[in-house]
């Protein structure tokens, strides 16, 4: 991806040079994760080697492991349909995983739309676009409520008609044409109208996974916050910049852990920080240098 070259460099050139791997490690790992997940679904139709069948909505891996999107199952239940146990078990596994590891890990490590919105954010920074109006970040929770309401009111999975997340993932695996307009629309929206507009403010899928991540184990922390020289690189690159301040500047908390469940655990702050303030750790790691 073009994202591999992303670096928002500060004016200060005096930081010790870090290798490309050090500067892009988490980005490369995330893109690899997103790509491998896609390839697991595509190796079947492309090479006849079946690893995962289906798509992110529901899948069967190696013929034994069912995985189902818990938000979809929730909507199905709201319509009044009780799915078969394979879908329920699949949803329980996914739910358990994200509850434990971190809700929005889905966003930065799995969701294909993340690549699109990251690209839009990168282009926006590069082109210096400052236009637009950002919607309230709580809109996503209203949309989440709205999609459940729509499911209840129509008795169908109404959101799935337009859901860009499943639209793109399904499209990449099963082929798409019309769906591309929605994806292009999101890119243009993030580029021209609202910085981090979709994933940071609107996407109800991300909002749902965010809610799951309230007590997640995998966390990014700023243990070396003393070294921070206020270059603002992390704020510029972070898809949810508001989550950094409490940990980095001790606003309302002593802990160096980024505890807000909006943090997607993408690790970009670790990558871009020349002072190596951040690191990936677990919830109980309170160490601070």
């Amino acid at each position: 991806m073009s994202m591999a070259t992303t670096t928002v460099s500060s004016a200060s050139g005096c930081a010790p040079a870090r290798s490309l791997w050090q500067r892009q490690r988490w980005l490369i790992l995330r893109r690899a994760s997103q790509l491998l997940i896609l390839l697991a679904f595509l190796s079947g139709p492309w090479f006849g080697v079946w690893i995962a069948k289906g798509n992110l909505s529901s899948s069967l891996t190696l013929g034994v492991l069912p995985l189902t999107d818990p938000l979809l199952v929730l909507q199905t239940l709201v319509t009044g349909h009780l799915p078969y146990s394979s879908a329920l078990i699949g949803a329980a596994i996914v739910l358990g995983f994200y509850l434990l590891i971190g809700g929005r890990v889905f966003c930065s490590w799995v969701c294909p739309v993340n690549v699109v919105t990251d690209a839009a954010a990168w282009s926006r920074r590069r082109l210096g676009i400052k236009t637009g109006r950002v919607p309230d970040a709580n809109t996503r929770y209203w949309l989440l409520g709205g999609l459940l309401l729509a499911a209840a009111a129509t008795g169908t999975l109404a959101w799935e008609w337009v859901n860009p997340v499943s639209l793109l993932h399904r499209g990449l695996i099963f082929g798409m044409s019309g769906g591309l307009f929605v994806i292009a629309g999101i890119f243009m929206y993030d580029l021209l109208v609202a910085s981090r507009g979709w994933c940071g403010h609107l996407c109800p899928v991300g909002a749902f996974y965010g809610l799951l991540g309230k007590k997640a184990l995998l966390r990014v922390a700023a243990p070396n916050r003393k070294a921070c020289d206020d270059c603002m690189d992390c704020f510029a690159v972070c898809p949810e910049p508001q989550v950094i301040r409490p940990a980095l500047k001790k606003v309302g908390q002593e802990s160096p852990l980024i505890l807000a469940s909006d943090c997607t655990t993408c690790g970009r702050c670790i990558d871009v920080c020349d002072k190596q303030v951040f690191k990936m750790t677990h919830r109980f790691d309170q160490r601070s240098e």
Partner: protein
Amino acid sequence: MDTGKNSARKSSTAASPASVARRKFINSVAAAAGGGCLLALGAGLYSRQAAALPAQALRPPGALPEADFLAACVRCGLCVRDCPYDTLKLSDLGEPVATGTPYFTARKIACEMCDDIPCVKACPTGALDRQLTDINKAQMGLAALVDHESCLNFLGLRCDVCYRVCPVIDKAITLETHHNPRSDRHAMLLPTVHSDACTGCGKCEKSCVLPEAAIKVFPRQLAQGALPAHYRKSWEEKARHGGSLIGEQVEMPARGFEGSTAGRAATEAVTAPTGAAPAAPSVPPPPAKTAAGINSRWKP
């Protein structure tokens, strides 16, 4: 002036920072709530508009009734993956079928009616009902011979292809012998679909030799009518009870067919009930017999 403005601003911020914050909060919540409601409304309307299945899209075997199907199917494509004949396809945004749901088009690839029904087994949600264990009981759609002007058998030829390819031959589709009024001496063997046995697999439509199929398979609700629930067929009731339920009835003569050969073999003598029907003035005189074909004398 300046001081007044300043003090005004000062007082407004100092007096009610809470109210400003509250107004801001209410504004943003209103906007967000509006967004949520719009989404619910938009998605709801769109889904209602798109909930009707177009005429040429058929659901996989075992699919729940359309409204329930759209609640149950999570659009995963596992049924698509396990269909050995690549019959099924997931709809894309903008197609008339609900986005992401599986369907097939009979004329492109028909369902081969697999004995083990792998598509149903693959479905994790029950959108394809596992109670369907005998593929012959599937109701994916219903075939209808729609074009009586082009079907070769209706022209009096013996094409029979739709009949021969039917996996439920002689039950779902039969050839019914009818008098050919054009030649007046030949038979037409008309492909006739029976709704109690047709699975809607689509093989007949797929195989129709015409450039545009004369027999087509539709979702059931499009291809099938329904009698009112209270209707009883006298002949069935009669058979069930071993006799008429209302006693012996006076046989009335059939009028209006004097001299006509309708419904009779060409060789059969026409026996008009001359004695029973004394010349009624309303009955027009028999017309000159045409060389071929029936004339029921019915005029719109």
